[in-house]
């Protein structure tokens, strides 16, 4: 079976990527191929990278407070490109009250501070939308 490919991206303008790097490392140690794109990405850039790299998961870390604006744009952009089988995740400092709204806009799970790595890894493994043998 092929490895799971994950794009770890930082949309928006905050410069705090410790969380994204810790996640990237944990996913690597769980046997996944992690494509890390670095800081300050626009939704368009994230969509383009997800298409070219043909990833199974787009995991976005955001701490700036612009999550309600930026995360749905990535979901929309992927849809517009015809990509419907990517699992879209969010993480970072996101108030609980914003999460239901994000979920209706295509962000399937949001992981806030205190989430264990095991939780993230097993969520990804059991919620992939593509068959790894395909």
């Amino acid at each position, binding site marked *: 079976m092929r490895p799971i490919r994950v794009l770890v991206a930082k949309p928006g303008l905050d410069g705090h990527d410790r969380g994204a790097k810790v996640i990237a490392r944990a996913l690597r140690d769980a*046997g996944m*191929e992690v*494509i*890390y*794109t670095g800081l300050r990405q626009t939704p368009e*850039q994230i969509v*383009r990278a997800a*298409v070219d*790299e043909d990833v199974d998961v787009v995991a976005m870390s955001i701490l700036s407070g612009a999550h309600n604006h930026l995360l749905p744009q990535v979901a929309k952009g992927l849809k517009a490109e015809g990509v419907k089988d990517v699992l879209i995740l969010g993480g970072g400092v996101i108030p609980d009250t914003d999460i239901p709204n994000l979920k209706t806009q295509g962000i399937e799970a949001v992981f806030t501070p205190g989430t264990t790595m095991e939780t993230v890894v097993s969520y990804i493994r059991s919620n992939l939308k593509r068959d790894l043998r395909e």
Partner: protein
Amino acid sequence: MKAVEAMLNGSRRDCARLITQVENEHPKAKEILREIYPHTGTAHVVGITGPPGGGKSTLTTRLAEAFRAQNKRVGIVAVDPTSPFTGGAILGDRIRMKSLYEDEGVFIRSMGTRGHLGGLSKTTAGVVQILDAYGCDVIFVETVGVGQSEVEIVQNADTVLMVLVPGLGDDIQAIKAGVMEIGDLFIINKFDLDGAVRAKTEIEMMLATDQRRKAIPLVYPVTASMAGSNRAEGIEAVVEGIIKHRADSVENGQWDARRKAQVRNEILYFLRGELEAILKKELDRWELEKVYQRNQSPRERGEEILRTWIEEGRHGKKD
């Protein structure tokens, strides 16, 4: 195949999906590669290799920008190491390539080595063929950070750039065998660092005394990214060097010779894999007890087996 047709007509997403199937050696990969092969051969494949942290990704980005300015379509295949323990990987070459992200004329794909040694992954050649068929004029293949013996890129590229930095060692390091023998162009990157001029001189002296080479490669001083800014120096000369290398190679016959060698290598690689599988099975029917008891050497028994095979091949199997 529908996906191949769509890719040939410019579908980015199909291109990406075909790459995935080829990279994973999916049952359809054989058919994909067969169908695209007649559409390959036009791209100039440029290998970028050198030690880790030497600036390969940053230089690749600058070169891609320069070729885009000439309206060439650019493909980038960036290989990073896979963990031998977990099978996971951090593919981080893209971090340096942000300036290319929104350019329709650039296709970037990251690959893990997935256990393959030699600086590339097992399926990199196939992925390059897809980008070639997709219509890329120039394809940069960035190897993992290499040590001393990862020379596989030379079998996969028309032009190889060896990216070095100051402070890697003395002139004895420079005359050792291995990776230093495969560069067509040498780059001393981070030329703003101490020791850069000396490093350049040492590499130039090494190259000047290399009897194996017909033409002495040039050594280019480059600073692909100045500290604290996006300024770069020396890129235009490298771009000219790459274009000139192609023109010179075509003229002196090296271009064709290298491509023919690549094709032979690819066939040989395939045959070796298939034959090994046959041999492994065939070996099961041979008695090896004498060798296990150390009364006969593995080599001696191997020669006996080989002789019998050749005989059987001539006269047909006896059993």
